[in-house]
Structures are given as C-alpha cells and as structure tokens.
C-alpha cells in the first residue's frame, strides 16, 4: 500500500477529481482527503498593493490531496493526477509517494488492503 500526497493548484482540483474517478474503482465514491496549504518554490504570488506599497508574496495557495492506495492503483492514480493537474506552467506542484504500512477503516475495523 502507498500513501500519495500531491500538492496541486487549487483551481485544478476539479480536473484532478474527474481523472481520479475514472481510474479508481469506487466511481462516485472514490476516496481522498484534501487540505489547504501554501507552497514555496519557483512560482511567485501575484502582486498585492496596500496604500501604494507593493508586495509579492512568496507563499502561494495550494491544495494537498492525500490518497491511500493498493500498489496496483498507484501508477494509474499518479497518471490521473498528472493529467488533471498539469498546466505546464511553473507552480504545478509535486506528487509524493510514501510507503503505507497499515490502514484501518474506523467504521468497521477492517485492516490492510481491503480497508484502503
């Protein structure tokens, strides 16, 4: 099992969701968790003006999408996120894949692969 954490542009969430739905089994009920975050990298924020003083924030709003998956689904999911999130411009974000040792569904107590 793997845990995928992807940092994406907020406005690409819908597209990513659409792509994920098509590769994951549960259709409407594909599972994921989303968090707000701010990212620092090559992309800069848009200029803001306060009474004539300018500032260009370095931290830019992003979303982090977390998905736990069985190994077979990892590659399709990564490709789906790439399709949904890519604009080709600086700031598209990253996908991190980390090992997941165990996964428990709280409602039923099921563990491991079938709980994902």
């Amino acid at each position, binding site marked *: 099992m793997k845990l995928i954490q992807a940092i994406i542009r907020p406005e690409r969430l819908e597209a990513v969701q659409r792509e994920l739905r098509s590769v994951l089994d549960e259709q409407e009920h594909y599972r994921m968790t989303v968090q707000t975050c701010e990212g620092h990298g090559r992309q800069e924020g848009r200029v*803001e*003006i306060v*009474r*004539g*003083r300018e*500032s260009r924030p370095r931290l830019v709003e992003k979303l982090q999408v977390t998905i736990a998956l069985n190994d077979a689904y990892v590659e399709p999911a990564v490709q789906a996120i790439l399709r949904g999130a890519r604009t080709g411009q600086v700031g598209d974000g990253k996908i991190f894949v980390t090992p997941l040792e165990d996964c428990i569904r709280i409602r039923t107590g099921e563990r491991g692969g079938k709980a994902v």
Partner: protein
Amino acid sequence: MLSSAALVLLMVPGLALFYGGMVRRKNVLTTIMHSFVCMAVVGVQWVLFGYALAFGTSQGGWIGWDWSLVGLRGITMDKAFLDKGIPELAFVMFQGKFAIITPALISGAIAERVRFPAFLLFTLLWTTLVYCPLAHWVWSPDGWLCKLGVLDFAGGTVVHISAGVSALVLAMRIGPRRDYVPGQASVMPHNLPFTLLGAGLLWFGWFGFNAGSAVGLPGPVAGPAAALAFTTTQTAAAAAALAWLLYEWLRHGRPTSLGLASGIIAGLVAITPAAGFVTPLSALGIGALSGVVCCIAVQWKSRLRYDDSLDAFGVHGVGGMIGAVLTGALCFMPVEASAAQVGKQLLGVGVGVGTAIVGTLAVSALVHACTPLRASDEEERDGLDITTHGERAYHAAIGH
C-alpha cells in the same frame, strides 16, 4: 441637532471597523477597543469637566471654566444654547461626540504596539490638555482664534489637524512595529470588507458632523447652511474617492478598494473646515485635490522610517491642512475669500500644528512617567488581543 449627534456617534464604530480591518487578526480587538474606549473615557470626562473647559466662560480667550458646568449641574433641561433655540444639552452632546472621535483618530498611528493602559491615560490627558483648549480657541465666541477670524466649520483644525499631527508625533515617539519595513507592504490588512464597511459608516456619520455644525451659524442661515454643508460634504467625498482611485490606477496600475475608501475619508476630512462656507463646485475641487495629495503623502511617507500604522497623519493631518488653507482661498461666506483670510487660516493651521506637537510630547512624557507606552516584543509578536485582553477575535475550526 440630536440626530446629528447620533450620526457622529456612529462614527465611533465606523472608525473602529475602518481601523480594525486594516490590522492583523491578532490585533483587531485592541484596535476596535481604542475607538470604543474613547467613548467611555471621554464620554465621562466631557460631562464631568471637559465641556466646562472647552465651552465654559472664557478665561481671557485661553480656556473656559464654570464651576456650574462641572457635571453639567448648571444646565437645566430647558436651558437654550445662546439664542439658537436648541437646548444646550443637545449642544453639549454634539460637541462631546467630536471630543470622543478625535483621540480615536490618533489611535490609528500607533496601532498594533501601543499598550492599552497607556492609551487610556493618553486619551484622558490629551483630551483635557490639548483638545479642550484648542476647541475653546476656535469655537468659543471668545476664543482668541475665533476672534481673529480663523474659520473652521466643523473641525478641520480642532479635530483633524490636531489628531493627525499628534498621531505623527506619537508614532515617532513609540517607534515602528517590529516587522515594519519602510516602503514595503509588510503588514497586510486582515479584513478589508470591515474597512470598507467602516468607511461607509464614517461617511454616513460625517453628514451629522458637517451638516450638524451649521448650528454654529446665526439662526436664519442655519437651515440652508446645513443643506449646503451636506452638499459640499457629499461632493468632496465623491471627488476625492474618484481622484485617489484614478491617481493610484495611473501610478500603480491597480485601482484598489482601500484607495477608494481612503479617498472617501480624505475628501471628508478636507471639506470639514470648509463645508458651510464654499460652493459645491469648490467642494469638487477641494475633494479632488485632497484625494491626490493625500494619496501622494501616504505613499511618500511609507518610504520614511517612522511607522504611522494606519496613516492617521497622511489622511487626517494632510487632508485637514489642505482643507483649512483652501477654506480661506475659496469661501464665499461668512467672509469673502481673500489673501488675508488665507493668512488667518495659515495661522490657524500653525497654531494647531504647534499645539499638537508640544502637547503630544508633553502628554506622552507624562504618560510614560506612569506606565510604559509600548508593548513588549513578545506581546507584539503574539498579538495584543490575547496578551492584553485575554481574547481572540475569531474562533473557528478545530474543537469548536
């Protein structure tokens, strides 16, 4: 008169929001309290002895006093004010609102770092030692500036110049915020809709401020003068808002909402001393000029090292001076505009500026002798709301 006084009162929450929206989340309550607490402190001071000092029998034109005005005991319910046919109590209240709003204006310059007890004491002393004398000089019929013929319709000198200049002096005295960087937008306003709403309430309340001041004029002209003051107030605010917006647009490529709101206030400030004395067209000019000049002043200032957090000087100080001088140059009543009148107005401005500088230095020294003016670095870092008041403005998310 009474509805005017009520309107002016609404300027207190208006100003509180205008300022409160511009600071960071961690300082919004203390900033709002600065305005509200002026109502509490000056509200009591004015009834106890403030009114006696400002509008009691003149002691040689320098200060007023009447033992019978202490606690307003001598003002019976049906006592009329001079010969104007309004109850004196209504006049007391109307003037009281001016005294309340003035130190609240100052608080904008020292937001996010002044200690709350120091501000309380400052408000009390400054109102007593600076505001009351100035109000006496300019508005009491026996005040020396009034006698010299200095014109100040609704408080350009007494309220705005004195507040703006005192704000500047105090900001320099207290020093910049810990994360202030000259010329950069180092601190972002946490809630601009509050600021815009505050500007809206201020603007509404200002009609009370300016139109209500027509009562100072002789009986028969009071009504028409109120209508004139209303018209010039509205016109100047509109012109200044437009001017600030357009100037900023040309200069920075962006018309900002904060610019629009600031322009409204700048125009209202500049027309204040002139409201009942100039034509609507002159008001248009005064407004447009003040919009551009205050915008430049605010931006120019931001390159300097002192930190007037919410630009109390750039807007109220500069706007007040523009208005005071132009009043002399454009008035058609009660006297015709003339070089001599401009001279008198300059004198008024000079006296206002001088009094504010000397008075604020003296008062802040007095306060500092009792309690430190400035919050500790840790308090400033964590925000005055939680460290001083034990409160957070917003509670959300987790665990609630």
